[in-house]
């Protein structure tokens, strides 16, 4: 449509773009600039070139943060996808009880990460937690330190995140299942295909776009995990759960190293862009295939 007055579209968009400039584009420029300085928020900033990036690389900190983030988020993505798909197949049925169970699983996604973090901190508490209690009762001996052992803590954090976001994967898979034509499934059943066979040769291939969507959105989102780490482990023990956002937060607020935090954020942003680009590329080739 032609605007009634030529200027109309511009002032209708103006407020949105003022906000975008102040809170998106300007900060992004500032972030890149800060990453070239050494600054502690108190004394004047000093230009250091690429030194922040170099020290992130040389100290091995960047690599460690990256692998920690990658392993936790891969576990979260695979766990929540497997659980979400299994639950979608189980709960894709009429009836009030199934609807109630769907709601129960999804409720965890609506509650805050802080609530969930505190809840599981208590369930997993090594001394008075109920899981440790059951362990002593049924397995005997001291329960493992789920959150105190660097070999276990990342998986504990991942498991809690899976519990939290499976509601999301469940909802998306349920929507995907609606698009699988009932007629094909019935035809396969008449041909004598077992339920497992029907899933493998009809449902699963037809769910492919849904699967890709869930995989990429939840990978990008789980790269940004922070709350659950801050509440449950504070990045520990021995940095075993120091994911990207937590590392940036720590550099800024605990170490007051603005430059280094900014350099870390720039790298983090680059990784997110790569992941999003891969997602785009995936869907492009999917759409043309």
């Amino acid at each position, binding site marked *: *449509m032609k*605007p*009634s007055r030529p200027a*109309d*579209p*511009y002032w*209708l*968009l103006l*407020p*949105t*773009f003022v*906000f975008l400039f102040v*809170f*998106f584009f*300007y*900060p992004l420029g*500032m*972030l890149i600039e*800060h990453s070239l300085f050494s600054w502690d*928020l108190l004394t004047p900033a000093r230009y250091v070139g690429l030194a922040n990036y170099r020290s992130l690389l040389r100290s091995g900190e960047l690599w460690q943060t990256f692998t920690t983030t990658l392993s936790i988020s891969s576990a979260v993505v695979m766990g929540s996808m497997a659980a979400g798909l299994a639950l979608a197949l189980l709960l894709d049925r009429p009836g009030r*009880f*199934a609807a109630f*169970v769907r709601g129960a*699983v*999804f*409720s965890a*996604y*609506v*509650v*805050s*990460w*802080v*609530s969930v973090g*505190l*809840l*599981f901190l208590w*369930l997993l508490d090594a001394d*008075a*937690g109920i899981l440790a*209690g059951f362990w002593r009762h049924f397995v005997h001996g001291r329960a493992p330190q789920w959150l105190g052992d660097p070999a276990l803590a990342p998986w504990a954090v991942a498991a809690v995140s899976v*519990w939290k*976001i499976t509601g*999301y994967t469940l909802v*998306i898979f349920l*929507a995907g299942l609606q698009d699988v034509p009932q007629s094909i499934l019935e035809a396969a059943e008449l041909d004598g295909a077992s339920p497992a066979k029907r899933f493998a040769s009809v449902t699963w291939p037809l769910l492919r776009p849904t699967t890709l969507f869930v995989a990429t*959105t939840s990978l990008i*989102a789980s790269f*940004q995990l*922070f709350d659950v780490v*801050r*509440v449950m482990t504070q990045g520990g023990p021995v940095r075993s759960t120091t994911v990207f956002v937590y590392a*940036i*937060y720590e550099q*800024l607020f605990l170490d007051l190293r603005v430059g280094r*935090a*900014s350099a870390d*954020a720039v790298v*983090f942003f680059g990784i*997110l*862009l790569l992941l999003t680009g891969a997602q785009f590329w995936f869907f492009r080739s999917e759409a043309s295939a």
Partner: protein
Amino acid sequence: MRNRSSLRDWLGKSALCGVALVWLFPYLWMGLTSLKPLSEIIDSPTALWPEHPTLAAYREVFRSLPLARYFFNTSVMAFGIAALQITLALPAGYALAKLRFRGRRWAFGLLVATLLVPAQVRFVPIFSLLARIGLVNTLSGLILPFGVSALGTFMIRQALLSVPDAQIEAARIDGASELYIVYRLLAPLLRPTLISLFLFSFVSHWNDYFWPLVLTTDEHARTLPLAIALLREQGTGVRWHLVMAGNVILSLPALAIFAAAQRHLLRAVTVRGFGG
């Protein structure tokens, strides 16, 4: 044959019960813990029901924290963000969906590009920006960085594409201004989309921990999730009955909104994915 199908039915039902248990037991345990005195919690960690149920933990939490203030802060922040996002997204979505003008593609591309920049990347510079203009520890500082939601604008634009041009033309002929068209004619037509957006934004910012943690250093603008998380960090030895009482207070409003408006939240989620 008959036996087999009833066995399958039974298996299916017990699987459902198992799933319900995995997702509901943690809430139940939270509620039960909050009703126990500390001595019971320490002496018998696996006892399900409290022997002497008491509301002492809730009294203690209400006594030791200015909960009314945190409630007020959190509500104002979440409401302010959701309302601001919708107020700004409506005219922008309208211009992008319905008006032809130079630079439209460019404006749309720029908007979609901001979807790639999460708050977790922007917070370092935004923090120092807000610190410079004195907005640290204020509700405005909590609200303004989230004033525009690129995804909300995008959703509103998509919804407006299906509104026929003739309806807008007719309003123009009747002498309606563009603002009248946006807020009085189109907004009511988009009711379901706006409700979904509002609720989803409200709940995710009610729950937000990251930005209030970064931006508040004292009681003044502190929000509920932050205050409840601090309950655990205070004093020596964790007093779990207090933490769980606080957790009940924190999660009940989100669960209540969920119970009342599950359908609306689901709509927003399927479009939006999760994140914030």
